[in-house]
């Protein structure tokens, strides 16, 4: 035993600084930067796949009638667009940021569990393949919505089983990633870097990782019960056997609402790094930002049934969930006020990362306000399952999480690649995204108010004009993202050399203590923080 232990220890030492070449560098990678890069590229590929699905949806909805796809296929597109964007695009994107940045921001050489890090990434491609393969099963993809409500999901074809397995795999990957992040942040900070001195990005990921560990098993439970209902004779969600279809919704949303914050909180973290840097002024209320983030995370466990106001609940429960939901506006407001106060009397410049952060701030807040409208139960009963909800969560997910991810990419790209991106093209990407995003989604508020249900492949004639506008916007938004791909590739291949600290106001360790591009093992010896 001793000999074996010594041997593996030595072997580990030999590996330092050595990397396999070619494809094996990526397959066997235990380096936080390589794995972060893989997460980000994977996420972008999934973003394109999910985006094509969105464009199929918007093409069918360009005018009334069934023109391009059959209703079954349409339902499958709405389902997998949602699943792929949430689990394949947005979540891995922020895990990619976590991998790249957490060791650099806390003065560590790498993540705490490099091999587990490798596994948690390499579980993603098989899961993505399962989701795509589901489209080719007999009967096509499962048209059950990304929420996979029973008993529609017990009725679906074999594609549902692939989807369930994909969700399991993605969940395992997320849990391992979270354990890694928690351990890294709690154990590997540089001497003197107390928790309350950490960059806010690390704080938001610490909180997010706890949320993930808490709720991914809940989702796994819900889909496992669906699986056993489908094949093994259980009746969890079947009233005829003593079960209850609404039970599924309670379990799903107990995962689903924290999931919203799993996506939003790291986005808050990125924006909290970008806005002070371009305001050349410290974040206004660091401590209150930490407490607000933690409050949002805790409250997110107590509001799940606001997604189910029409499912049938005692009026007392509806009142409770309404009050609890409204309460989330308080810490969220604190965050928005803090960002604005950080900009107040700063010395602002508007490079692409700052533009995306401001786009985030403006549009995420708008999405927050429609969320407040939806939290009021009697109003929600009118708007539930209409396009108003679709507009609301796209303001939070796209203008919120995605814009913040863009802000982060442009912000850290110089540190990651050693090269600057093209500022003019970056700004074009921002303005095109901003305009087309609003063309696509703002009009959907009106559709929802007028009563257009979501997830329908065809609609009554009075909804025609806004659907046309929305579809045009969607194509504009989709094409604008190809510009982003071009900007990133151009930056990597032929961008100007970037200085160690290209942003005047940036103050976290990766800017102040590391050269550009960042070295293979971020900090061989930890910096001392006073």
């Amino acid at each position, binding site marked *: 035993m001793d000999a074996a232990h010594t041997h593996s220890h030595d072997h580990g030492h030999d590996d330092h600084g050595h990397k396999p070449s070619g494809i094996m560098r990526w397959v066997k990678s235990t380096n936080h930067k390589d794995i972060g890069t893989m997460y980000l590229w994977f996420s972008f590929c999934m973003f394109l796949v999910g985006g094509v699905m969105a464009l199929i949806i918007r093409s069918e909805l360009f005018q009334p*009638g069934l023109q391009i796809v059959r209703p079954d296929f349409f339902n499958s597109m709405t389902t997998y667009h949602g699943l792929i964007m949430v689990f394949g695009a947005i979540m891995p994107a922020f895990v990619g940021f976590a991998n790249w940045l957490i060791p650099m921001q806390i003065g560590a050489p790498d993540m705490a569990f490099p091999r587990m890090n490798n596994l948690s990434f390499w579980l993603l491609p098989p899961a993505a393949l399962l989701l795509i393969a589901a489209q080719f099963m007999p009967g096509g993809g499962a048209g059950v919505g990304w929420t996979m409500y029973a008993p*529609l999901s017990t009725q679906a074809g074999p594609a549902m089983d692939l989807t369930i397995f994909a969700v399991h795999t993605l969940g395992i990957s997320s849990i391992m990633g979270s354990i890694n992040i928690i351990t890294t942040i709690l154990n590997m900070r540089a001497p003197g870097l107390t928790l309350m001195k950490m960059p806010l990005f690390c704080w938001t990921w610490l909180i997010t990782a706890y949320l993930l560990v808490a709720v991914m098993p809940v989702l796994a439970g819900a889909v496992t019960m669906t699986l056993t209902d*489908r094949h093994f004779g259980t009746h969890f969600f079947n009233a005829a056997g003593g079960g209850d279809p609404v039970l599924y919704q309670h379990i799903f949303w107990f995962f689903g609402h924290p999931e919203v914050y799993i996506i939003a909180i790291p986005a808050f973290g990125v924006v909290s790094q970008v806005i002070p840097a371009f305001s050349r002024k410290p974040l206004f209320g660091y*401590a209150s930002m930490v407490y607000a983030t933690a409050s949002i995370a805790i409250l997110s466990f107590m509001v799940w049934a606001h997604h189910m106001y029409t499912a049938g609940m005692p009026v007392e429960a509806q009142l409770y969930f309404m009050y609890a939901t409204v309460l989330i506006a308080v810490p969220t407001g*604190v965050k928005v006020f803090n960002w604005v*106060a950080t900009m107040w009397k700063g010395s602002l*410049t508007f490079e692409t990362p700052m533009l995306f952060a401001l786009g985030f701030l403006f549009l995420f807040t708008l999405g927050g*306000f429609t969320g407040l409208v939806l939290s009021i139960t009697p109003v929600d*009963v009118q708007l539930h399952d209409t396009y108003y909800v679709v507009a609301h969560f796209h303001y939070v997910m796209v203008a919120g999480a995605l814009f913040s991810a863009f802000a982060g990419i442009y912000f850290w790209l110089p540190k990651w690649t050693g090269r600057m991106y093209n500022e003019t093209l970056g700004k074009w990407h921002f303005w095109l995204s901003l305009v087309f995003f609003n063309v696509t989604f703002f009009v959907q508020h009106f559709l929802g108010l007028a009563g257009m249900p979501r997830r329908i492949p065809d609609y009554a004639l009075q909804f025609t004009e806004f659907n046309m506008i929305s579809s045009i916007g969607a194509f504009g938004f989709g094409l604008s993202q190809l510009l982003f791909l071009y900007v990133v590739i151009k930056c990597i291949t032929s961008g100007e050399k970037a200085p160690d600290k290209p942003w005047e106001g940036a103050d976290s360790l990766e800017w102040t203590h590391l050269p550009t591009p960042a070295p293979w093992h971020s900090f061989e010896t930890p910096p001392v923080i006073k």
Partner: protein
Amino acid sequence: MSIKGIKRWAAAGALFFWSFAAWAEYKLNLQTPHTLLGEKIYDLHTIITAICFVIFIGVFGFMFYAVFKHRKSVGHKAAQFHENTAVEVAWTLIPFVILIAMAVPATGTLVTMRDTSEADLTIKATGYQWKWGYDYLKGEGAGISFYSTLSTPRAQIEGTDVAGRNANPNYLLETDNHVVVPVGKKIRILTTAADVIHAWYVPALAVKQDAVPGFIRDTWFKAEKPGIYRGQCAELCGKDHGFMPIVVEVMEPAAYTAWVGSQQKKIAAAKVDPNKSWTLDELKAHGEKVYAQNCVACHQATGMGVPGSFPALSGSKVVDGPKADQIKLLLAGKQGTAMASFKHLSDADLAGVITFTRNNWSNKTGEAVAPAEIKAARN
């Protein structure tokens, strides 16, 4: 100002007002409510949106002021202040107070919304893939029962009759049978479903309630004005989720009483003599109608089904096999598939549709199934 200038301004002004008129045709808000509760909800939505709008302008007023005045390019030097307990307490407490102000009227409205007691008329709405069934349970008209299916012609949906679609103001929002109710009476709607979850949603009457299989939920409305109000299923329920509308027709009490009378007469007339002996052709003709209402969405008019999702009936082993097996399948449904039980149909309907399928398309069994055989199989 020259005459030309005035003309130009007048033209611009006219254009300006015309654009308002044009916008008025677009629906920018909730549908006009036709119940008192709906009006309350409408006002609640207006108030909350207005409060949000004011806060939005305030917060982003600050942000845009900073964006324009505190930028480096105008030479603004960054102050280095941070943290201010008074400000932070204020921006935590003030929103809290505003939220309480929102929650108070919302609570009253919610309690009213959920009070389904003392209804004048109770109707059960059952969601099926993909139509609604209605049973009048209590109040004037109790005993009336019918299905309500989309009546928009397939040609308009599939795009072979685009002109017809464009000329149809109620495209996808029309049904063969309307839910008829009296004006000014409290109508309680019980919702349930036969297969998956559906939702009964009529925006102008301010009701939306999920219909959950195996459970009963309820909601209510009291229409203030006679008229026809249209809604749709709001919960994803499979392939034809977008094609199961709801049409509520609100009538004056006298007209409603007359409608109830006519319905009851229809029921009496439709009561098929259980001892009537049917010929094969009669059963087939009757069955074709039943098929169009219940089966065609999945198994298709061609009897070919949808490969991979819904099996073909033409050339099917079950349909061409022993009739007892087919009767059993229709009465019990098939577990784990979209094939639900159809035991709610009458003996004559089931006998008709089975006879129809066994003697249509490529199926030529030449056998008729009599209503009596269904009756026997039920026991």
